[in-house]
């Protein structure tokens, strides 16, 4: 059986941008999100993402459980499943995958062994202003058979212009329109699907 080490990961522009806008909206706290998609041959396609939480209670179970159940219910009707986890650390220069992130990732791994963990790389994000780069500004981790999450280099955005579009959105402060699961729990009229975001 293939281990996570032989799969490529391709993330759709919209899913990618959503996660980063979420991180930019909440600059001063950790944020996380789930990656939704499917396995297609030897490629894991990340077609959607749902930003989850931004409050400091990221390490608590109840909101996470509700979120995962709802998200799983919604997307399985479309033939998609949870294929990974996104995390952005609180501090700018912190490029370490923390224990909370690892625990959540382990949980997702149990249901999808090719699960990807993406960690936001702030320095790369900052560098996008000055240097054109098509690579995603995230660090990819996959899990090996010895239960460790290792850095891998096999992620690309589906559309090469993803970072350019991201810069556009950044200058127009589009992050104000992002809704995450935390916002939904505080006000259920807010749509965590962000269906109107890119219209």
């Amino acid at each position: 059986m293939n281990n996570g080490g032989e799969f490529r990961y391709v993330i759709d522009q919209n899913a990618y941008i959503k996660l980063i806008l979420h991180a930019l909206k909440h600059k001063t706290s950790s944020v996380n999100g789930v990656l939704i998609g499917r396995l297609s041959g030897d490629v894991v396609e990340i077609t959607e993402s749902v930003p989850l939480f931004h409050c400091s209670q990221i390490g608590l179970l109840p909101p996470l459980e509700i979120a995962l159940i709802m998200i799983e219910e919604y997307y399985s009707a479309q033939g998609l499943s949870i294929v990974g986890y996104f995390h952005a650390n609180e501090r700018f220069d912190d490029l370490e995958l923390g224990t909370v992130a690892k625990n959540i990732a382990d949980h997702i791994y149990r249901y999808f062994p090719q699960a990807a963990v993406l960690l936001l790389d702030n320095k790369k994000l900052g560098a996008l202003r000055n240097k054109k780069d098509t690579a995603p500004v995230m660090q990819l981790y996959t899990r090996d058979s010895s239960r460790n999450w290792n850095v891998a280099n096999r992620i690309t955005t589906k559309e090469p212009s993803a970072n350019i579009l991201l810069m556009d959105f950044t200058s127009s402060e589009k992050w104000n329109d992002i809704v995450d699961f935390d916002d939904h729990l505080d006000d259920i009229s807010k749509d965590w699907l962000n269906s109107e975001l890119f219209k």
Partner: protein
Amino acid sequence: MKKSPSIDPHSSLLRVRQSPPCFKNLTVVLRPQLPRQRSSRSQLKVAEISNLKIKMVSKTEESQLQQLENQVENRGGGAWEYLSLVRKLKLRRSDKVLKHGLTILNDPKKRSALGPDEWTLYEQVAIAALDCQCLEVAKDCIKVLQKKFPDSKRVGRLEAMLLEAKGSWAEAEKAYSSLLEDNPLDQVISMRRVAMAKAQGDILGAIEWLNKYLEIFMADHDAWRELAEIYVSLQMYKQAAFCYEELILAQPMIPLYHLAYADVIYTIGGLENLQTAKKYYASTIELTGGKNTRALFGICLCTSAIAQLTKGRNNEDKEISGLAAAALEKDYKQSSSSKLSLLSSTLRSLKIQ
């Protein structure tokens, strides 16, 4: 006739007279650690500014703030009122404060119209500038204040914060220590130490400083909350629970603490903890008049988990979860009808329906 009135989410008997600060409006005020902003703008480092105060903002204050913010952003005036409100509520809106504060300060007429408040504004803008890593702006503001108030401890504090923002930790630590020598009971400076530890990634050091701080200032509720949150981020749930217990003892009518405590206790797990969590979710619902979605979900999660552990559902749990589920469905039907079927299938998978 409901057997347990305390968990009747439809009860209109609001024990609390005024509307309690909603959990939703938990706005973070000047966190201890000004994490480096992950912006694609220039800032590479961020200053750790001011207090670590996580203030709870009431709904009316929140909407007032939002209104003023929109007004000012759309050039409708009211910048000074906005800045004063941000100052009063101790919120962290550094980019907006910087933008609008500078507009006032750079205009000599507007500046003189402020009178003695001019200096307060300089301080506010300096701090916002530090947060946004606009160190030159901060330096200029501090210089102005230094000229006006030489030998001032308050300005000395700003100078130390500037060192922090630059990342000169050792010098900042020296500056703070000397300020503390003259004034050992200065809360703000003691907090800065915690902030610096956190910013350098020394979370355990931050915990140590915060514990020392709480030994002296044990009535500082925001500090207890900060400590609880740090513990949660390190998954030290038992210690976090202790902090929330202190908070509930000190201020038992604040639903936020009950809710956070329930979340932590649920996360620790185990039958007894699940029962306790259920009680605290119930008290949150009571204190908020049934308006707290998180607590309603919490009840459903608890009863579901308890049923799994005890291999069966007792009648009281069935009743409570039924009530919570009904309240959720009513809310979703009203405010989020597109997600109603999703909610129903979620509740079904928790075996509530």
